[in-house]
């Protein structure tokens, strides 16, 4: 195979890994709670920034990944417990609340971390130049793909092999019955929202390490996340995997062959899917 095409595919896979981590959190929260968290992009930015500060202070990248993820998980948990639960079921209040939160996060981040683009420094031991079959590619990107696969597997295990997962899946289908059966649905809501925040916090650190963080990336990331889950079908984990893979390759090849239209290109599958299958590739009808 042509080296160039191989690199393009690898780029697409790296991008897909980030897309998946981004989208899975959002889709999970939506599937169960019917909440479109419009501060998802801001969570990403904040997680990345926190990771940046940790790397900057300690030089320890794995620690930054954990710190970025956990701090956003905690933040999301507190947000759900103190505010979001009050507007449960109300589409408009939820939308307004999460938009407001995203603006607050964006402005506070601007005040703390400034407007300059920042990148998390990846230590050399995590980024060796790897040559496989004559194709040289940054090792860190293989790690990103690995993390993406690992997260997908963990999510699958949690959702399909644990009691918690069973409750979550049941909640997706019929919330009332689940709570009537004695499951504490409130606790599950908070837990799922925290998990969703954990994922996007991780995505922030991962994304911030191979791209860059700057004010404004929150809205770009939110756009991507929405496209991913709309294409895949809101609430579907498998859908998120498939749509991330599609969009990753589309973006990668689009950038190579028609860079001018690459941004526009990622909306094409979404438009087609919305026209013929509005619930998304793997979504169930709402």
């Amino acid at each position: 195979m042509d080296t160039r095409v191989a690199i393009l595919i690898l780029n697409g896979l790296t991008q897909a890994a980030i897309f998946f981590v981004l989208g899975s959190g959002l889709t999970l929260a939506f599937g169960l709670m019917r909440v479109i968290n419009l501060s998802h992009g801001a969570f990403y930015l904040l997680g990345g920034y926190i990771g940046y500060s940790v790397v900057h202070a300690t030089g320890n990248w794995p620690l930054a990944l954990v710190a970025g993820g956990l701090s956003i998980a905690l933040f999301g948990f507190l947000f759900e417990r103190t505010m979001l639960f009050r507007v449960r079921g109300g589409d408009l209040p939820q939308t307004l609340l999460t938009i407001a939160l995203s603006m607050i996060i964006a402005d506070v981040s601007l005040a703390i971390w400034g407007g300059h683009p920042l990148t998390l420094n990846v230590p050399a031991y995590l980024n060796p130049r790897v040559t496989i079959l004559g194709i040289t590619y940054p090792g860190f990107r293989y790690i990103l793909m690995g993390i993406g696969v690992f997260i997908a597997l963990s999510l699958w295990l949690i959702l399909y092999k644990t009691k918690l997962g069973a409750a979550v899946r049941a909640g997706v289908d019929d919330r009332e019955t689940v709570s009537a059966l004695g499951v504490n649905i409130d606790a599950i809501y908070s837990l799922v929202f925290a998990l969703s925040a954990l994922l996007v916090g991780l995505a922030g650190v991962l994304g911030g390490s191979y791209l860059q963080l700057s004010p404004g990336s929150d809205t770009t990331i939110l756009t991507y996340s929405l496209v991913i889950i709309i294409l895949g079908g809101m609430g579907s984990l498998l859908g998120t995997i498939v749509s991330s893979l599609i969009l990753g390759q589309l973006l990668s090849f689009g950038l190579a062959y028609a860079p001018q239209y690459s941004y526009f290109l990622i909306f094409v599958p979404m438009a087609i899917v919305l026209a013929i299958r509005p619930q998304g590739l793997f979504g169930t009808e709402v």
Partner: protein
Amino acid sequence: MEKTMLKKLFVLLAVLIAGNTDVRSAEKEVKVGFISAFTGVFSSFGQQQKEGAVLALEEANYTAGGAKISLIYEDDQLDNEQAVTKAKKLVVQDKIEILTGLVSGDEGLSVGDYMKDKNIPVIPMYSASEDMTMRAFYPMIVRATWTGAQSMDVFGYWLSKVKGWKKIYAIGQDYSYPYNQGGGFKRGFFRGGGEEVKTVWHPVGTTSDFSSIIASIPTDQGYNAVLYNGAGGDAVNFVKQYVELGMGQKIPLIGQSNTFEKPDVESMPADIVGALSAHHTADDLATLAWTKFKEAYHKRWSHDPSAASEFAYSSMRLILRGIEMQKGDISDKPALIKAMTQVDMSDDPRGPVALDPKYHSAIENVYIREVAQDGNGQLYNKGLWTVKNVGQFGPYDPELYLKQPSDSGSYPPDTRSAFPPETLKATTEYQYIPFGQ
């Protein structure tokens, strides 16, 4: 009943307070609107711009010619529609008397178009699309800074004429300022004997991963260099990925004027030491004016200035000096414009600046620079060559120059052979003087 009474009382009180402040502010006040992109992919430029302007204002104690100068800052998030909305707000609601700021090319063009009939001086600081002081010029515009093509013509000519390069692969951000930089670069490069500048555009600030574009650069077709014609967050990403994919060893990377500007260059890998670019400032200028400015700037903001901060500092000083010459009374706008064009800018930190009386654009030095590393490991732009007195038309005849279409995504053409030869005819010759002489 009582409630309405209370309401009326409040209104009365409000009117009284408002009236009172009006009486108290009897001293002259000039309101200056400042629109820039403080967020978004060019936020670092917006921030630097504000810092430069504030430094000039603080040095003048926010007064000029006995008038108090007050600034109203607006963030347009690098969105042209937002920029026009903000301009409208500044004009209608705040009743500003001067508009400045403007960081990107598109921003300048759209705000400039809105301000056309407002009889309010527009002083663009960093917005460099040449049409603002060429095809879309009107007398209320004074741009004492630069156009996109100005530095790039000097750069392109030097690369082909002196270094003997023939082919360049250019990847750029898809909007007016890089078009203009690319246009200037092509004219200069072809005039000096270059043959091809293959050009690829990508959307601004949305393309997070450039590795696919980079992987598509042909390494076996004799390209002398890859020109990244973009800036801000995109440039940091692009350069990082260029190095990571091992392209640095295959084809050298060069930049447009802003690619390696501070502070962005400080987040780039040290592998790019030696990368060439051209601008109207260089970080190691040793003139008294630059040293003084750099020290004052560093003292105020605890980091180094960039071209964006210098341009803002210098434009704000121009505004202040213009108001000074009018003794603080700027009700006569054409007189203020006239005063501004006569302001002495020979003491400008980046080198002497003169204004073209016809198009109100700057005539100034261009520096060819390379990325270097200082003792602390920090990257900066080190001057190599100076060309003096470069105007916005470069070495070309203004009339012939204006006959060409505006630079765009598809003009000028990518090869010298597709270029009408008369458009590459120069009426003057650049003198490349070793930097610092």
